[in-house]
């Protein structure tokens, strides 16, 4: 009996040891995107991570569920190749004019202050597409600082 309990204890200890680093490395990040009153249909937008040279690294969120419109989010579409593995489980409804979207997600801590950027492409039906509506560095310094968008985004900020 004692041996069984020791074995169970060892398994639990090992499992905790393996799990702890994964939790320790993740950082909860909140992205807040406030849209302008642009007066059109719901906006499609792709929030993604790029390196310092603007090269796509990974998708964080896609607002808009019809994949046939994804090609209008051109910077993100080019980088992701519109490969479903890149955005599976990371899509939701498009965002209406004047509304605010808040996204909470866990990001690897090592990505912060390491030369990465957050980029957002936006598109609205029958209106102009905006690649890089937002492009801001992912740094502790930029966190909490509202940024004005170049297209349909009124302001964007992320909080660590």
């Amino acid at each position, binding site marked *: 009996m004692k041996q069984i309990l020791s074995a169970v204890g060892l398994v639990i200890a090992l499992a905790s040891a393996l799990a702890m680093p*994964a939790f320790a490395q*993740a950082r909860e990040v909140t992205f807040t995107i406030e849209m302008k009153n642009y007066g059109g249909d719901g906006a499609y937008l792709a929030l993604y*991570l790029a390196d310092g040279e603007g090269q796509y*690294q*990974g*998708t*964080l*969120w*896609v607002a*808009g*569920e*019809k*994949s*046939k419109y*994804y*090609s209008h989010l*051109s910077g993100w*579409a*080019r980088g992701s*190749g*519109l*490969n*479903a*593995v*890149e*955005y*599976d*489980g*990371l*899509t*939701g*409804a498009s*965002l*209406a004019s004047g*509304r*605010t*979207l*808040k*996204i*909470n*997600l*866990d*990001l*690897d801590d090592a*990505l912060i202050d390491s030369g990465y950027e957050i980029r957002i492409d936006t598109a609205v039906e029958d209106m102009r597409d905006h690649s890089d509506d937002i492009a801001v560095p992912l740094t502790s310094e930029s966190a909490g600082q509202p940024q004005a968008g170049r297209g349909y985004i009124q302001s964007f900020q992320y909080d660590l």
Partner: protein
Amino acid sequence: MKTKTVVLSLALAFMSASLLADDDCNDPMTNWQPQENLRQKLEAEGWTVYRIKVDDGCYEVKGEAPGGFRAEASFSPASLMLMELEREDDDEDNDDDRYRNNSEKREGTPGSNPSAVPRNGIVSGRPSVTVE
């Protein structure tokens, strides 16, 4: 004189049409690269190219993209830069709705399975999202 006016009007009409068409490629033909260059570039990137043709001044490619889906894509003939990429399976819901009963109108192909867990290795777990 009358002929001159008609020719001028037609010329202006064609010019404005090409200016309005955002999806067109406007590379001068002298700068175009051979289609074979594009085919080789795409195959090196993992594409299976079915055919390349010229459409609206762009190279239009039909094939299978590296993600394993059938795609139609436009490329600038000079720089071979990707201009537009469309998944072919999405064409099924393009304008077919006009043949359907309104009550059966489809909403289009969802981008992904919303309940799926992210698999891209950047985000762990499904994000929580609110709209205000």
